[in-house]
Each structure stands twice: as C-alpha cells, then as structure tokens.
C-alpha cells in the first residue's frame, strides 16, 4: 500500500489554469473524495495523478517516488494505478472475462492458470461471477460499471482512482453502489481517490472530503466537519442546504459570552460562533433543519414572529417557506407537518446553529 502526495500541483491549459497549486496528503488505505462543481479542477487533478495529464508545476509522489513533476511524467501504465471511468470505458469488442483479463495478459510473468483464477476472483468480488462469458453489450449500465471495477482491482493496484463512476447510473442503483463501493474499498484497503460532484455521494463514501472551487482547495475535512463547520459560504451552500443572510458583527463575544450580529434588515441575532471582531461584514448561516417553527417563542433567544408562505410535504419531512419581514427563510421540519399558507407562527434560530462566515467580497 502506498500513500499519495501532491505538492503545489499546478495544471495549465494554454492561458487557463485548471488546477491552481494544491497540496494534498492521502494516507495509505484512505478514501479521499474530491468534491466540487464542474470546472473546479477535480477531474484534472485525478487525471494528473493517473498520469493521463502532465503537471505544469509542482510534484506528485506515490510513496517516496516522484511520478509527476514539471516536464517529467511516469507513463500511466507504469504507475500501478487502477482507474474506474465515468463512461465505464469497458471495451465493447471483448467479453467480460477478456475485459478483466486484459491487463493481466499484458504481464508475461503471470501464469495462465493464475490469470483465470484472478479474473474469477475479481468477478466474484463485484458480484458478476455468473456473467463471465457475456458480451459487454448484453450487460446493463450497472453491470458494465462492475466490470470496470473488477478490471481495475484485478491488477491489485497500489492506488485506485474513481472518476465520477456512478453518475451514469439511475438514482436507485447509484445509492446502492455507493455503499458497495465503500464496503469494497474498506475490504481491500486500497488507497483511493474518488471524484464526484454529488455531495451526498461524497458524504456516504469519504473518509475525508476535499472541497474544490476554481482550481483551489476550498476546505478539507470529514463530511461532518464540512457540513457542521463550513469554512465559507461556498462550502456551506455546496454541501447541504442553507439560509444565508448578509449582516455585520455588533459584538465579538468571547469565552462565556455569545456574539451578536445585526442582519441587513436590522434584525439582531445571537450566535455562539464567537471571535470575529465587531464591524466585520458576515454571511449569517443557518441550515433549514435548524430553523424551528414553534407555537410561542416569547422571551426566547433568536425568536421572531413570522408567517408561513408555503409548506410542501416531502414524505419524511416538510419543506417550509417562511417570511420574516422582508427576509425569506427555508425550514425543514421532521416529522412532516403542515401549516396553512399565511398562518402566523414563531420561528427560532438556536444560537448554537447560527454560523458567522466572513463575507467574501467576490461573491
């Protein structure tokens, strides 16, 4: 097993910079997810690690060995990396067995008998043991992706790369495959890097999530960390839903005292998120599931009279639009409840769930 290390990696295409100097340390056996919107540089980063793209600057190391640096690149076939592609990329002119055996046959040191056994093993692993002799076109999308997976793991790579492997599958299958992929990676213990734009997928699969934005790393952390303590409005909005309101810190607060912030409409909020000096322009953030609808909030902190705008039943929860003066808040209430439109209610934003993020001028 080998870890992977990226040192100030830069990838430019002509005058555009796709990846703008990122540093990453992927531990042995870890499953790291590169997450971000399209164009954030996550796939480019993955392809650089695979050796399918050269880096413009910086270095990539596998273990102690430099595999990529400016002007130097170990070709992909000599990196000992397995990869599963978005389009599956299984070869249509070969059977399932031929696809999986392709890489093994290229290595003359492996005896024929071993090849057959290893192919069978890999196919059993992904649950395709019964379909070994099928042609590729006779398989469903999900089965084709399993073939691609078997083909990648059969070579016992040191590192496994996934480039949005589930995005071509239908929703149900995708959800099931997430858990399967995670379980398989845990069982094999292969260092894995997984690219996706689907935040839920990232949450299910990742040991650690690297959130990327505009060719840079926006935040690194466990799914919980990023969800509960987003470092920026971008992170807060990309992972999960959030209410975000412009405001200004009135008092910084401290160890035993809450911070206070004035929203742009004049409303005052209390937050346990202390430390930003008074006068700082902030985005005040509160996730919908923390916006509580209560019958009477008289005398409670961060409680306001409000009006229901609409209430949508989603089965396991209700998605409620609330009007608070000129502000519009979104609340998710579980278990689902229903309010008639225009009914008067109280909302409460618990201080411990009100996050203050330094406002970014560019957004």
């Amino acid at each position: 097993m080998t870890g992977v290390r990226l040192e100030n990696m830069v990838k430019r295409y002509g005058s555009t910079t796709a990846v703008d100097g990122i540093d990453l340390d992927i531990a042995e056996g870890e499953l790291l997810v590169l997450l971000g919107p399209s164009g954030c540089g996550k796939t480019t980063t993955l392809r650089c690690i695979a050796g399918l793209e050269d880096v413009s600057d910086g270095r990539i190391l596998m273990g102690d060995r430099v595999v990529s640096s400016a002007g130097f690149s170990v070709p992909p076939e000599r990196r000992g990396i397995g990869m599963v592609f978005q389009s599956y990329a299984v070869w249509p002119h070969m059977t399932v067995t031929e696809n999986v055996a392709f890489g093994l046959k290229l290595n003359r040191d492996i005896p024929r008998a071993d090849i057959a056994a290893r192919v069978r093993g890999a196919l059993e692993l992904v649950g395709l043991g019964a379909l070994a002799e099928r042609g590729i076109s006779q398989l469903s999308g999900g089965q084709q992706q399993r073939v691609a997976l078997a083909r990648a793991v059969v070579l016992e790579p040191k590192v496994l790369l996934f480039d949005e492997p589930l995005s071509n599958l239908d929703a149900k299958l995708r959800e099931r495959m997430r858990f399967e992929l995670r379980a398989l990676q845990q069982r094999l213990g292969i260092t894995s890097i997984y690219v996706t734009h689907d935040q839920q997928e990232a949450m299910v699969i990742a040991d650690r999530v690297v959130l990327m934005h505009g060719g840079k790393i926006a935040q690194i952390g466990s799914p919980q960390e990023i969800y509960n303590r987003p470092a920026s409005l971008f992170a807060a909005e990309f992972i999960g839903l959030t209410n975000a309101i412009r405001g200004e810190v009135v008092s910084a607060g401290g160890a035993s005292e809450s911070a206070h912030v004035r929203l742009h409409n004049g409303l005052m909020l209390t937050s346990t998120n202390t430390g930003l000096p008074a006068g700082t322009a902030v985005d005040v953030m509160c996730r919908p599931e923390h916006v509580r609808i209560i019958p009477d909030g008289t005398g409670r902190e961060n409680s306001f009279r409000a009006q229901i705008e609409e209430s949508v039943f989603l089965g396991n929860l209700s998605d409620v639009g609330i009007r608070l003066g000129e502000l519009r808040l979104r609340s998710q209430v579980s278990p689902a409840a229903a309010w008639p439109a225009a009914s008067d209610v109280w909302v409460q934003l618990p201080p411990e769930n009100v996050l203050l993020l330094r406002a970014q001028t560019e957004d």
Partner: protein
Amino acid sequence: MFLFFCPFVYLFTIGSLRAMDTSLEEAARAAGATTLQTLAKITLPMSLPAILAAGLLVFILCMETYTIPGIIGSTAGFTTLPWQIFQDSSSVPVHRAHAAAAATLLLLITITGVWLQRRLTRTSEKFVTVGGKGFRGRPLQLGAYRWFATALVALYVLAADVLPFGALLLSSVMKYSAPTINAQIFTLKHFAAFFTTPNMLSALWNTIFLAVLAGVACVAIGFLISLLEIRMANPATRMLAFLSVLPVAVPGIVYGIGLLWTYVQTPLYGTIWILLVAYVAKFLPYGVIVSRSGILQIHPELEESARMSGASPWRALSAITIPLVQPTLIAILFFVVLQSIKELSASLFLYTENSQVLSVLTWHYMDAGDYQFAAAIGVVQTVIMIGLVIATRAVFRVRLETALGKELG
C-alpha cells in the same frame, strides 16, 4: 448526372437521419402534428445541414466530372467547363494557357463550394441530435402512399441501374451497333478478345494493383492523420489534417493536369507510380474525413482505461482503438478501391503506354467508336466492383453503405 450522384446524397444524409432521435419526431406527433407536418417542420429542418452539405458535395463532384457530360453532352450539343479543359489540353491544337485558365476558374468555383460546404456542416454540429444512448428508429408508415413510393423507387432503380447496365451488357455481347436485335449478332468475342489482348490484361492488372495499393495507403495515412489530429490536437496536426483534405476541392482533371505538368520531367512520369500518387492524393481526403468521424466515435476513455490496465500507447492503439474502428477502416479501403477502379479524370492525363488502366481503355475504345468492346471492359469493371461490395459484406460483415453513410453523414 442525377442518377450518377444520387447514391452520394443517400450516403451522406442517411447517417444524420439515422442518428436523429426519433423521440423528437414523436414529440411533434404528440403535439398534434400529422406525419406530413412532422416531416416538413421537424425532420427536414433538422437534416437540412446534412442535405445541403450533400447537395454541395454533389455540386463539386459535378463540377469536376467531364466523362458523363463529355460522352452525352458533346453529342447533345452543349459543353461544360471540365470538358472544355480536356479538349483544350488534349486535342490538337493544344491551348495550354486556355486550359490552365479554365482550370484555375474551375478550381475557384470548387473551392468556394468546399468552403460553403464546410460552413454548413459546421453549423450542423450545433444540432447535435446524436445521444450516446441507444434508441430504435421507427420506420415511417406510408399507408396508401406506399405504392406510389414503391413505384418511384422502382423507376429510379430502373433508370439508374437496370437500364444502363442492361444496355452495357447487351452491347458487350453484340458484334456491332444495330438498331434491331436478332440472334445472329450476339457474340462473346469481345470478352474473348479482352482476355487475349495483352494490353488489356496488363491494364486489368494495373487497375487492380493501383486500386488495392491506393486503398491501403489511404486507409493507413488517413487513419494516422486523423488520429494525430484528434488525440494530439495542436496547430501542426490540425494543419496537416486540413492540408490532406484540401485535394477534395481540386477537380480530378485539374489535378491530373497539375501532376502531369509537374512530373513530366521526372522519372516518375510514364510509370504507374504517378497514377498511384494521383489516386492517393485524390482519395486521401475521404480516408481522413471518414476515419476522423470513426475515431471521434471512440471515447478516449476506452484507450485511457487500457493505459491504466498497463498497456503501452502502442498496445492500447492496436488492442483497443484499431479493432473498434475496423469497420470504418474497411469501409474506407473499399470505397477507395472502388473509386480508383472508376477513376478516369486524372488517369487520362497521366497514363502512358506502359501504364494503362481499364477506365482509360474503356474511354479510348469509346472514343474510337468501338462501343461493344468498351462495353465489354465496362462489364468486367462492374463485375469486379460488385464482387468487391459483396465480398466486403460477406467477409467483414460490413455494410459498406451503412458504414460510409454513418461516417460521412
């Protein structure tokens, strides 16, 4: 001319028609349009770029064709630019400058045509109707119009295939041109003569040799150029691809004169190699264009996944890419072989006594008024071509018209 070029339009448009998602048409039907309205408002506008492109291509091809107008037109009392060039440069007195001027004019017209054609096909890429997903086209139900359509097709087949080829076959077995047909004038002596004239056999051999060599060369070079252009996109490879496609704009006759006047002083002149140069240059554009779309259909990840499985670049190419584009490559091979057998406009300028080819001989016997013998050669040529088409289908299970139509369209 209409009959001769109809197949090209078919080849060029069937691809885009087949690729069109029928759900687009079905949506129109669901919105209340009749079959005819759907055809007029949806199908036709969407395939317009392909149809226009095909039309222009035929326009260019017509511009350079002088054999058909030459044979029919000169007797029917009208002349065309290519025919004029041919007359000026090959009949005594030779008007070289006149021919060169006419050729330049012709070149300008065809280049304008190609430029227009490129513009039109470029806009057609905006309507990318082709999804990666498989869908099944539903044949149009013609209902009562069926008989009318069948009759129309039958008429076309009759006029385009049956009558000319029948006449060809008939005259090849006649002793002389006769207005009435009776049993006494039938003979196989032309075919017998064909196989006993030494000149003829060497021409047959030359034709086959050149056609096969030109075919292989166009496939290999065309595939390589397209591969470089697509997989290693940079200004140099794009330029190379552009240059290799350029001869498409050059009418065969202009090309023939150009080559003749260029190579007449070199040892290449008078050998069949100059013919090979001409054929390869003339048909390479098809090799490049067709293999290009063939390669474009192969997702680069298919190659990349081979690399990730431990294959060298060469191994990925030979084990994955080439087998996958094989049908396209075979289609190109046979297309070029067939075209080379038919090629006359450039050959006529470049052949010598040592480098006869069948198409030129046919022309000469025709010119000399020996229609029966020319017809016999024509029959042999046709049989070779039909044989090739059938052989491709049988051996490689490639439907030539489908493969080409898909790629060209």
